[in-house]
């Protein structure tokens, strides 16, 4: 556990020293800010139209702003996650520092967990930024915080799963660009697999849709913790990290 934390701290240090973290934070803040601004504008305009027509339609911050906004966050995540994970192992392999880690009295699992945890913490710090915008909603409106918290939990679980996959892919190459590109494609596919259910209703479509990370996010973003979906994400996390450890081991046999 101590070693995991040592590795995690070192990874976070690398993220924040090498500017990656700041660049990601900036990009994320810009994208999120844009979505927040458009959704909020539409909401305000609609609200004023309602008033002018004298109709009293129910307006709901959670339904009309937070939910679509967080759906968008999970999409922005698809772009952020490859950028976070691509360097995790590829860089160590290129630098030769993997030899240092592998010849230190540390378990492979500790190394992998440390790196994955650092990636998750960086992702969480992106999510933390969204608090700035959402604080305005709480200042001027009364959104319900409970579904919001559940949705964030869902975002973290989804990111954890994709980060685990990205970590695995990073062990396969010493080239960060390849690792990043491959991770992006895999993340994207896992996101859009859910769409097949829209035009196809045979078994394979259901299976494919089940493997989609987006399918399992629906319940969270609606504010419901569904055990099925949580278990799905946890399974993907464990599988991803397990494959990473297998890959690290095979690295030794082959290299």
């Amino acid at each position, binding site marked *: 556990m101590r070693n995991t934390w*040592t590795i995690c701290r070192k990874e976070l240090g690398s993220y924040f020293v090498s500017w990656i973290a700041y660049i990601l934070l900036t990009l994320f803040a810009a994208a999120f800010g844009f979505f927040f601004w458009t959704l909020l504008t539409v909401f305000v305009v609609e609200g004023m139209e309602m008033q002018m027509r004298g109709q009293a339609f129910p307006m709901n911050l959670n339904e009309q702003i937070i939910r679509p906004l967080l759906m968008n966050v999970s999409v922005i995540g698809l772009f952020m996650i490859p950028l976070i994970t691509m360097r995790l192992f590829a860089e160590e392999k290129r*630098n*030769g*520092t993997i*030899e240092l880690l592998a*010849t*230190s*009295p540390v378990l492979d699992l500790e190394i992998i967990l440390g790196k994955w945890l650092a990636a998750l913490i960086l992702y969480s710090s992106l999510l933390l930024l969204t608090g700035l915008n959402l604080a305005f909603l709480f200042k001027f409106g009364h959104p319900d915080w409970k579904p919001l918290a559940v949705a964030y939990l869902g975002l973290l679980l989804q990111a954890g799963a994709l980060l685990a996959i990205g970590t695995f892919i990073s062990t396969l190459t010493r080239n960060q660009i390849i690792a990043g590109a491959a991770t992006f494609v895999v993340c994207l596919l896992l996101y859009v697999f859910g769409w097949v259910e829209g035009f196809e209703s045979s078994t394979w479509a259901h299976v494919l849709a089940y493997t989609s990370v987006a399918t399992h996010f629906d319940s969270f973003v609606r504010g419901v913790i569904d055990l099925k979906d949580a278990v799905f994400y946890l399974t993907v996390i464990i599988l991803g990290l397990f494959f990473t450890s297998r890959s690290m081991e095979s690295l030794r046999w082959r290299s």
Partner: protein
Amino acid sequence: MISVKELTKRYARTVAVDQISFEIAKGQIVGFLGPNGAGKTTTMRMLTCFLPPSAGTARVAGFDVLEQPLEVKKRIGYLPESPPIYPEMETAEYLKFVGKLKGLSGSDLQKRVEYACDRCAIADVKKKLLGRLSKGYRQRVGLAQAIIHNPDVLILDEPTAGLDPKQINETRDLIKDLAPDHTIILSTHILPEVEQTCEQVIIINKGKLVATDSVRNLQARARGAESVLLEIAGRDGVLEAPIVQHKLEQVAGVSRVLCKQQVDSRVLIEVESEKGRLVRGDLARAVVQAGWDLNELRPAAMSLEEIFLQLTGSESGEAGKPATKELPR
């Protein structure tokens, strides 16, 4: 301290290390010698538990590299061919990180970082980014990283590669300094390095163990009998090697005459003399008196370099075979 038995590493198409066996006692500095691609790095990687062996066993401080890798890793400091540094880290920060990985903590860690910095003369770059350091400093940081947890065994893969002559000397002195407390294996393809720093040599070539002996023994063997190379030419265009050979054999003190090469009227001859006898003058006189030209006369005493070349050179090398036979396996 280190015991290796029939250690083998096979890849899909090649055998990188082929049934190597050797023992290294505590406190020794051992030179691991071989041309590039001989399997030095692979052997070292197996000793450090980075690569698992395909067959055979290796034990470090009594622990098997396959069965108790964590125990082995705790006792080994390893400097790979290129120092494993993170360019975005500062020197002290990096050493602290490595120290923690190796199981140090608290004031102990602080003390060892100070110690390693002093020992490797990198105290002046503690606050510098590793990526900005010169090659020499990086190498020393690599060395500091290897000794940070005061390991029993130090494994250094070409520790002087890429350094300038001054830095090479400094690094060698540093390694010698470290010797009393650590058992050191260092790989190199530079011979003087072994002659200067090591007590024991292990020579490998193409994955096979060629010789293991102490440096002194190898040098003694080289100096034991004086051997001289002569290039002799006939004045009138013809020169028969057997006649020359016969003539030289009659010089007092000569034990063996070997005709190595004949080109037209020139012959290259190697003469070995008995121990302790200087025969060069007599040889020269004999040649001149016989009416031949003496083009060249030089000592062919085997330096470690020549032994090395003979041992690791192509098998068809003329002089290679006798020397190989003489060396104990």
